[in-house]
């Protein structure tokens, strides 16, 4: 398998799921944000080291909704089915924004399927009393990107972008507050890395601080000079953090500037 992503389809009990896949090695499932699937630099980086599976949430990017799947909890069950049908065993999960919300539900409901979890600017953790999120294009753009000049052109046609917006409504994600999930995140047992941009106003810092406080084995890392779309604002930092965490887990807090030399000294032991 090369690091070039290919689109494919796999069947799960509720219907067919389109997905992108690339790479080889340990399985990593990537869950995309509300803007839909985009092969970002951090994702390409993951594919150079892992086998990446990136399902398209039904209803996004021109795909059909699945009957009976209309909530984040139901989507988490669908992703669990996808993992069973695709990788076929527990894997690492990386979720960005909406994907982080989904990844958190997956880890709560199906702990046996998630080895390491990365929640990048996870949606769903706004306080109940937070002001409503704006979806006006100019506000969105200002809040999503600290460095809009780094954002590659969006090749999705306008009607697909509009459909993605409707899909957000379909799953009831508009206010980005999920009280039930917030009450249950302490059930997440796997090693978890939470990433947050220092300029992110769509997910307030209090949301990720709450995750750090409640998830027993978690790390919170602020990515400096990044807004909500971390992967596009700071692709190198997000890519390096994610890869290092998935490779080394909890020990990623230890500076290892010469990992090869260290490994050789330890006789190749991890």
């Amino acid at each position, binding site marked *: 398998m090369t690091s070039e992503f290919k689109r494919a389809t796999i069947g799960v009990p509720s219907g067919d799921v389109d997905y992108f896949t690339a790479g080889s090695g340990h399985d990593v499932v990537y869950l995309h944000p509300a803007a839909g699937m985009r092969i970002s630099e951090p994702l390409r980086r993951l594919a150079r080291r892992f086998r990446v599976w990136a399902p398209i949430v039904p209803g996004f990017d021109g795909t059909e909704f699945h009957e009976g799947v209309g909530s984040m909890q139901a989507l988490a069950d669908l992703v669990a089915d996808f993992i069973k049908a695709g990788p076929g065993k527990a894997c690492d999960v990386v979720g960005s924004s909406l994907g982080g919300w989904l990844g958190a539900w997956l880890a709560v409901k199906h702990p046996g399927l998630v080895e390491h979890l990365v929640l990048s600017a996870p949606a769903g953790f706004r306080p109940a009393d937070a002001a409503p999120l704006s979806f006006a294009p100019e506000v969105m753009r200002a809040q999503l990107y600290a460095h809009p000049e780094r954002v590659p052109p969006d090749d999705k046609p306008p009607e697909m972008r509009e459909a993605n917006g409707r899909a957000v409504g379909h799953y009831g994600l508009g206010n980005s507050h999920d009280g039930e999930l917030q009450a249950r995140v302490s059930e997440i047992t796997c090693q978890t890395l939470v990433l947050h941009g*220092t300029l992110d106003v769509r997910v307030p810092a209090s949301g990720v*601080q709450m995750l*750090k*406080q409640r998830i027993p084995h978690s*790390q*919170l*890392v*602020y*990515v*400096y*000079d990044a807004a909500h779309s971390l992967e596009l604002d*700071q692709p190198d*930092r997000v890519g*390096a*953090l994610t890869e290092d965490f998935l490779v080394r887990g909890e020990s*990623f*807090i*230890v*500076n290892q500037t010469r990992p090869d030399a260290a490994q050789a000294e330890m006789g190749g032991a991890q």
Partner: protein
Amino acid sequence: MRFSQTHHMPYTDIDEAGLGWPISNSRFEPQRAVEMFRTYIHAKVYAEECGFDAIGCNEHHMSPFGMMPNPSLVAASVLERTTRAEIQMSGSIVPLNNPIRVAEEYAMLDVMSGGRLMAGFMRGIPHEYVAYNVAPDDSWPRMREAVALILKCWTEPEPFGWEGEHYQFRAVSIWPKPVQQPYPPILMSGGSPTSARFAAEHKAVMGILRVLNFDQARKLIDIYKGKAREDGWEPGPDRFMVGVPTAAAETFEEAKRELRDGTQYFFDVLQGGINRAQQLVVSQTRFNANDTLIRAANKDQQMKATPVEERIENGQVLCGTPDMVVGQIQRMYAALNHGQMNVIVKVGNMSDDFVLRSMKLIGEHVFPEVKHLGKTETVAVE
């Protein structure tokens, strides 16, 4: 009006320091330094007795200009011998240091002093970057990121990591945290338009630590106010600190002589090699791009030759009998509407006996006449 005292703790037992960088320490006499440190620390502690509101500690490297490469050490000594005065760190040169260390040390000082810390975040002057081998071009990016990280260290409720351009830490949770919540008042330099805006962004006290003239100082204050209003708040006089070399004596002649001779020594000896390093930095990097410090440095040499009377007129110094100093402060306040003054009590090789007498006169005869000025505090705009 609040008054802080600054004493740079210079090494004054040399007649010339040469014009190159670095300044040779071959003539440094350790035993003399022992005496100087005792004298200088005493002068700092004495400031509280004289009625100063704050005692300054600042960081400079590799020069007889100031023997305080780690201001926290001096602050720790001073705070143990004082009970009331604010410990004004003016301050750590943030881009040269590990920001976590700055956050930790400042938190320690705040706890050790029972909440008397003013946390100064300085970018420093060019020669410091040569001393610590940090690229001067990186000074502003490092400054911005380090300040953001330090504030995170003080305010995060849970352990966190930091992935930035200049600083990476995977797991941070400092002990102790500051006493003052959410964090101590911040002091930043406002010597340039860029730094004035940066200080306003952080609602920091802005120190104009070298006044060229009232117009220059007023422009910097206006830049700060403009940025504050953009951000929806109105700064009061308490946000502005003006720094001035000062000499008070029973007669104008004595004050003038001490200030003139001390200034001469400052420029001829203490500032010698520093100027060379500064020229190298500003000619080869963007350290001062778009800012006024280059012009300020050029003015230094002019300042040396400027008569004391003219320097008083420009607001560059306070000098004279206590009554004269009162008048100079009132005039300065009328021009700048500031609420804090940083009094540099030892200029060059000014005698230590004179420094103490000057401080005493200021405390007894100047403060009662001017402390009521600039009492309006900063308020948020609705």
